[in-house]
């Protein structure tokens, strides 16, 4: 009886082990992508740092940005990183589909709120005549913050797809793997934002 269960268990475990292995390979591959994305951001950060005082007689960072607004944006993105962590927690350890869906949805809405705030800021700058054509500083600013915003947009599109997939198929090895990779992406974007918050907004306000 016991040997039977054991061999049975072994057999049922094997395909899972293999797919878990390929999941971890996918995760590692995605990690390498994230790191190359970090290099992309590093180049844009360096460009911004070089250009940040070249305002060409236009407004500087200190005159343009509202600090409480930026702090709100930062906290929203931070909370969304945390709620994604909760979604990934329920997917990996508790196998509860509804909680995963709920936390993914909360994360999605926070991401939308963040993007909406960023769009508001960009529109305001643009309407006041401070577009990317105004000065080297503003070109650098729009490139850096805009690239991050595009990443967030891509993350949100991906997340909406994942929500549909989890909703239809439930928690499977495949969906768990996807929650894992999107998690890497989302937490990475939060880390990049910390540096934008520090180098563009905080140091700009000094």
């Amino acid at each position, binding site marked *: 009886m016991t040997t039977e269960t054991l061999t049975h268990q072994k057999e049922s475990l094997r395909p899972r082990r293999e797919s878990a292995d390929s999941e*971890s390979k996918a995760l*590692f591959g995605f*990690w*390498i992508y994230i*790191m190359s994305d*970090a*290099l992309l951001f*590093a*180049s844009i*950060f*360096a*460009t911004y*740092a*070089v*250009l*940040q*005082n*070249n*305002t060409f007689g236009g407004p500087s960072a200190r005159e343009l940005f509202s*600090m409480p607004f930026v*702090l709100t944006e*930062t*906290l929203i993105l*931070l*909370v969304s*990183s*945390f709620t994604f*962590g*909760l979604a990934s*927690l329920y997917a*990996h*350890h*508790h196998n509860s589909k509804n909680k995963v869906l709920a936390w993914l949805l909360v994360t999605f809405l926070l991401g939308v709120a963040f993007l909406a705030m960023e769009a508001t800021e960009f529109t305001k700058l643009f309407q006041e005549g401070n577009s990317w054509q105004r000065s080297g500083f503003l070109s650098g600013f729009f490139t850096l913050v805009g690239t991050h915003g595009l990443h967030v947009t891509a993350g949100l599109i991906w997340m909406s797809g994942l929500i549909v997939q989890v909703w239809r198929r439930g928690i499977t090895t495949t969906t768990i793997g996807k929650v894992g990779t999107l998690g*890497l992406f989302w*937490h*990475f974007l*939060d*880390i990049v934002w*910390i*540096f934008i*918050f*520090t*180098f563009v907004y*905080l*140091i700009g*306000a*000094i």
Partner: protein
Amino acid sequence: MTNDFKVIDEQYEAGRRALGSYVTGFVLSVILTIIPYFIVVRHMFEEQSLIWAAVLFAVTQLFVQVVFFLHLSKKSKPLWNMIVFAFTIFVVSFLVIGSLWIMYNLNYNMTDTSPANTNEGYIPK
């Protein structure tokens, strides 16, 4: 049968530890965001130290989030994760510090500044 329960227990235990990790990471990140914000907004120190303080808080938060959100640590299963991460940190700092250093010297070695394109220098005072 008992084995199954043990697996579930371990899963549950791992879940609890993961939750603890996310909560710690989140609380630390909020603190590490709020402190530099108020230091800068209230202008608590002179400019140069404000800049260093802000950078220090950002780098600390980078490591907090990498450890508590991305769960990268010495125990990370494929050691390659860690190696790739370390290499990226190296290249990123090389790229950013190198660019700033070169451009700083370039600005200050310029003799000709045409009025149409005054380069005011990029280094924060």
